[in-house]
């Protein structure tokens, strides 16, 4: 997961799975040992500012957090700014760039022809990876030890990452062709890893499987499946089986429940039967949910990719804060440490 030879971590996932949170935690984990990590978003949502509790990010790398001995810097990539910058840097189009803007060409490129947006966004990531610490060209140390990209969702990820292939096919020669090919080369090399964030629910898992198949077909290098918001089962295995069937009955558990409620000073209505029935019904729902989640976990095993479980943290519904991000980063650091050699290695509780 934290392999230092990987310089670009692309994080995708179905909407609602928490890919921005996971991307942020991954960036913090990568920075722990003293790296400078760039965390980039490309969808204009200002999601990074939100998870770090910051004002909207400008179009330049801004330090978001210190992590261990390193630091994480955020960048909200914006297509229009990227295009003007690109024209300026590569073609020194100071004035002509403005002419293009006046003619509506910049608007055309970034809105009417929306695919060009993806070209510009991936281009900016490519530039960040090639940027040198001293700001010059050449072989100096890179400005960023790693780049984490909070990428478009699973439904769009293959198209997004492959846009330069489409472009290289369109522009069959010339500088754009060359640039598009270089970007594709970077994205398909062993220094890139595409991670997919999912929840243990049918639709996110289905989209994960579909996206992985599509990415593999395009020869884009796969990283890990990150299972977010994993909650431990509360009942024992035997009780889960009972609750899912009808083995956990009011006759068995009812007296204990009532005794506990009374001991806690809770007012019990009537015989308390309705309360017991409702609590047992919730336990049955819990058991069904757990068994559904296990089915989904099985499907993920078929992908034959490393799987990392990220625990659900308290208060996740209310949004993440930086403390929670660091806690998730701890989990990522823990699962990435090479396991000490043991005669009979035990599966760790968090990695499967």
């Amino acid at each position: 997961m934290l392999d230092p030879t990987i310089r670009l971590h692309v994080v995708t996932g179905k909407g609602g799975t928490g890919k921005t949170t996971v991307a942020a935690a991954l960036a913090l984990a990568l920075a722990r040992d003293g790296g400078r990590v760039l965390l980039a978003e490309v969808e204009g949502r200002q999601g990074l500012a939100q998870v770090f509790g910051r004002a909207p990010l400008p179009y330049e790398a801004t330090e978001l957090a210190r992590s261990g001995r390193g630091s994480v810097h955020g960048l909200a990539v914006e297509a229009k700014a990227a295009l003007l910058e690109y024209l300026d840097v590569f073609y020194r189009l100071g004035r002509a760039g403005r002419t293009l803007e006046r003619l509506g060409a910049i608007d055309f490129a970034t809105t009417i022809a929306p695919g060009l947006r993806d070209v510009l966004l991936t281009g900016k990531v490519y530039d960040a990876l090639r940027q040198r610490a001293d700001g010059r060209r050449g072989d100096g140390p890179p400005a960023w030890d790693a780049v984490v990209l909070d990428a478009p969702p699973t439904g769009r990820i293959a198209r997004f990452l492959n846009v330069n292939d489409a472009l290289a096919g369109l522009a069959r020669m010339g500088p754009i062709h060359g640039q598009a090919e270089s970007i594709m080369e970077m994205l398909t090399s062993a220094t890139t890893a595409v991670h997919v964030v999912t929840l243990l629910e049918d639709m996110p898992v289905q989209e994960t499987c579909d996206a992985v198949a599509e990415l593999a077909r395009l020869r884009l290098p796969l990283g890990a499946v990150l299972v977010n918001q994993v909650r431990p089962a509360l009942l024992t295995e035997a009780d889960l089986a009972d609750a899912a069937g009808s083995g956990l009955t009011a006759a068995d558990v009812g007296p204990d429940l009532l005794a506990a409620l009374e001991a806690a000073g809770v007012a019990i209505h009537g015989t308390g039967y309705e309360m017991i029935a409702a609590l047992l019904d919730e336990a049955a729902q819990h058991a069904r949910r757990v068994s559904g989640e296990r089915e989904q976990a099985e499907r993920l095993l078929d992908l034959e990719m490393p799987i990392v479980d990220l625990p659900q943290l308290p208060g996740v519904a209310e949004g993440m804060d930086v403390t929670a991000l660091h806690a998730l980063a701890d989990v990522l650091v823990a699962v990435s440490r090479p396991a000490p050699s043991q005669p009979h290695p035990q599966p760790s509780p968090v990695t499967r």
Partner: protein
Amino acid sequence: MTGGVTGEVTGALAIDSLLDDPQLRVVVCTGSGGVGKTTSAAAIALRAAERGRTTVVLTIDPARRLAQSLGLAELDNTPRPVAGVDTTAGGSLAAMMLDMKRTFDEVVQAHSSPEKAQQILANPFYQSLSSSFAGTQEYMAMEKLGQLRAQTDPATGRPRWDLIVVDTPPSRSALDFLDAPDRLGSFLDSRFLRLLSAPAKAGSRAYVRVFSAMAGGLSGVMNRILGAQVLTDVQAFVAALDTMFGGFRQRAEQTYTMLAGRETAFLVVAAPEADAVREAAYFVERLRAEDMPLAGLVVNRVTGAGAVPLSAAEATRAADAAVSPAREVLLVHARRMHRHDAEARVMQRLSRLYPPVPAAVIPARPIDVTDLDSLRSIAADLAQGRPIPAAPAVV
């Protein structure tokens, strides 16, 4: 609209009176990804059909099992009747999945001569634009909506669809189609387009002179950036599209007018999570800024308080005093109540929207929605118009 079907709570969404209103012809479900938009659209369409309306649901990218439950085995861009729908009230349900490329191809074919259409369809720039580039989906969803709205029954000459339910693509750009007429308009009137389309009309040598004269060496710059062959392809594409653009623009304007009118209802779909709630608030504000007919908010997968009047703190206290498995049963309830309380706090942002938006919350289900029965039960929950719960006091 105020007052739910129960008549108890102001600010609740009354979906049935909305669906029963014969003036309503289009329901657009919008919201960020992963909030259950497609499921909501399917459930609403099913309910409308079973309440007597001839309904079609247009989905953009349904989850495989949901598609199967609607009988959509393939993506073929044509409405297919859904089996298993109760038609005793005189309604029916058809469903279709949007095929973006095919819709685009059909637009080209409908608006140009066969020869020209062939030219456009074979153009490499067109092929990329219509299939591989993001954003085209938003435009094509609206194009398809316009087409469905215009379809008539050949026997009666009356509209084929009494009600169209559509979900929007899963991205923040889902509302980009609202800008489509403006964008197309300013683009079509732009000098850039005229520059691009000039050469194919005037011949390439003349073009270089015209282009150079007009833009002061711009063509050289463009050639340097794009490569000459790209520019030629783009020019051929733009010139070929030129003839159909008028029709396209007119259609986009018609669709926009329809969306802004009384016959349409927008529903913003959300889930009780911080991100989804923030996005929902954005969608509400955006629709209001555009004067679009916002009918209400649907909040999916809300953890109910359950039938037990027992707070998280009480359940935890009782668990401490309990033996297994009573202890774990109480912890299950405590976890549920923690979640319920957190969600209620997150949803307050939606209660605070001003002016208030009628809302309905739909309880979470232990298993995923994969068949018509579960869609029906979701629709029934929606029709209850449960309001957003009040936030518990922070202890």
